[in-house]
């Protein structure tokens, strides 16, 4: 079957290409239903990465947040009509056999750190196409009663789940969360749904955004005079992540864990003296594994979570032409003040 696939070919240029869907006896054929644009997609769309990297990436099919419907599964794991979350991380287990990176097998890490993994819309083409054939371990079924525009936030939630795998919640009663953007909000949701007894304090800049964290204490760093923390999560990213990490260091108790989730293309100048003096541990978090998506598919049955995710849908645009893709990317470029996303649908 032929398929229209969209690729970013140079900054702010998206083009249509014709592709052949590789249907075979080992692949599940999925019709992509709903997609959300990530900040990483925006960076490729705007060309805001190092030019040498961009030259290697283009042409690149964007989108790694998507859900779809199974059309055909020769492996018999799924049925036609099953609603599924698409997993963007693709692992080649053959390469794991002689790999020197043995710690990926630890539960708190996982194969989302695999250096050989291919990640959609970064090191392999993403989901912006109507049909895709993928391995049966690259999709996770979710309850058919859950709307696709809610389930499309699963990839973000899975990253939140993966981040919280780095924390031993048996020892934790309170968490400081730095950031008031969508990633911070998603981590907050995973915290309140999966760890309702943990006290969450959110540090942000934008009062309107902070109002959304209704089950947390919210504050700015400058106005905070309370207790320090032994678990702190950074979801700021960009150039401001440097300030956030230094603020987190200053609010850390001795031996605290700092979970870093925000992407900054520049190096950060951070207070290593305090890190040494307090014996802090900095843990990098990126992406998620299939198991995290399985966790998320169960979480989606939580009424509170679904009600919050529904609020995050700013708009839904059906793709009738390439202009719709430009329009939604441009909306997302300008989307700074609201916790939510403009979605694309087929």
């Amino acid at each position, binding site marked *: *079957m*032929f398929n*229209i*696939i969209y*690729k970013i070919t140079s900054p702010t240029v998206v083009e249509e*290409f*014709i*592709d*052949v*869907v590789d*249907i075979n006896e080992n692949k599940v*054929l999925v*019709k992509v239903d709903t997609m959300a644009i990530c900040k990483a997609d925006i960076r490729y769309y705007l060309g805001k990465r190092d030019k040498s990297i961009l030259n*290697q*990436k283009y*042409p*690149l*099919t964007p989108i790694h947040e998507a859900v779809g*419907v199974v*059309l*055909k599964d*020769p492996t018999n794991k799924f049925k036609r009509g099953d609603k599924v979350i698409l997993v963007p991380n693709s692992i080649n287990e053959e390469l794991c056999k002689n790999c020197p990176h043995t710690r990926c097998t630890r539960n708190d890490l996982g194969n989302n750190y695999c250096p050989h993994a291919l990640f959609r819309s970064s*090191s*392999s*083409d993403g989901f912006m196409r*109507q*049909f895709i054939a993928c391995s049966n371990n690259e999709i996770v079924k979710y309850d058919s009663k859950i709307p696709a525009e809610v389930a499309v936030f699963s990839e973000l939630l899975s990253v939140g789940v993966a981040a919280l795998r780095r924390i031993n919640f048996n020892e934790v009663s309170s968490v400081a969360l730095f950031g008031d953007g969508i990633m911070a909000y998603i981590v907050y949701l995973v915290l309140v749904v999966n760890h309702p007894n943990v006290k969450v304090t959110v540090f942000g800049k934008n009062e309107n955004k902070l109002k959304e964290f209704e089950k947390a204490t919210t504050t700015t760093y400058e106005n905070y005079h309370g207790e320090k923390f032994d678990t702190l999560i950074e979801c700021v990213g960009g150039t401001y992540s440097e300030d956030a990490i230094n603020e987190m260091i200053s609010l850390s108790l001795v031996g605290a864990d700092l979970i870093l989730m925000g992407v900054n293309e520049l190096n950060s100048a951070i207070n290593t003296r305090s890190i040494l003096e307090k014996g802090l541990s900095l843990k990098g978090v990126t992406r998620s594994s299939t198991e995290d998506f399985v966790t998320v598919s169960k979480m989606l049955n939580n009424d509170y979570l679904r009600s919050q995710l529904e609020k995050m849908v700013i708009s839904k645009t059906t793709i*009738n032409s390439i202009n719709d893709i430009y329009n939604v990317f441009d909306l997302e470029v300008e989307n700074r003040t609201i916790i939510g996303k403009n979605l694309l649908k*087929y």
Partner: protein
Amino acid sequence: MNIALILAAGTGSRMGNTDKPKQFLPIYGKPLMVHTIEAFEANDDIDAVVISTNEEYIADVRVWCKQYDLSKVKLIVAGGSSRQISVYNGLQAVKTLASDEDIVLIHDSARPLISQKIIDDNINGAKAFGAVDTVIKASDTIVQSKDGEKIFDIPNRTELYQGQTPQSFKLGLILEAHERAINGEVPNVTDDAKLIIAMGKDIHLVEGSKLNFKITTFDDLMMLKALLKIGRTEVK
């Protein structure tokens, strides 16, 4: 019920030096018509597919349906010496599966780049209006010549469209049109939409796509292959 009638009875006489009709030529490992049928297989609103094909290829088509798991294909019938006969034979097969109010989408097997939107719009349009034709606006100036030597007329381009397929109808309506043509009540024509017009009925337009072009000549096949080659560019 919505049924796709796939016309695959062409002879491929304009495809140059090949012994196979165009719809059976292999593209990326499978016959061109299989790619076309897969587009209908993927559409949730299509309930069944009927194929009208060359009699000598029926056995091959049956094998391909099994090989490529085309589970919606319910009947494969022999076409005829003209498009109109192939459609009529196909409609007779469709009639065994559906009732007069059901929708039939008649599509050329050599238009493999049909989009899901065009299929959806055809179904919705045929349900609403009874008869729809897929078209695209004419982008080139169309020149009419009656003798092939001199221009007879240059019609106003804003009123001109290029016809594509599917052409979609309520089954009872298109069957009646064909039967009236066979009985000589309306003239025989090469196009199903013309049969409906000859009955004095309206046909509404559905927007097609330039990509939904028909593989008719060797150049068309090269165009398709070139589009696919560009599309297969991978992330470095």
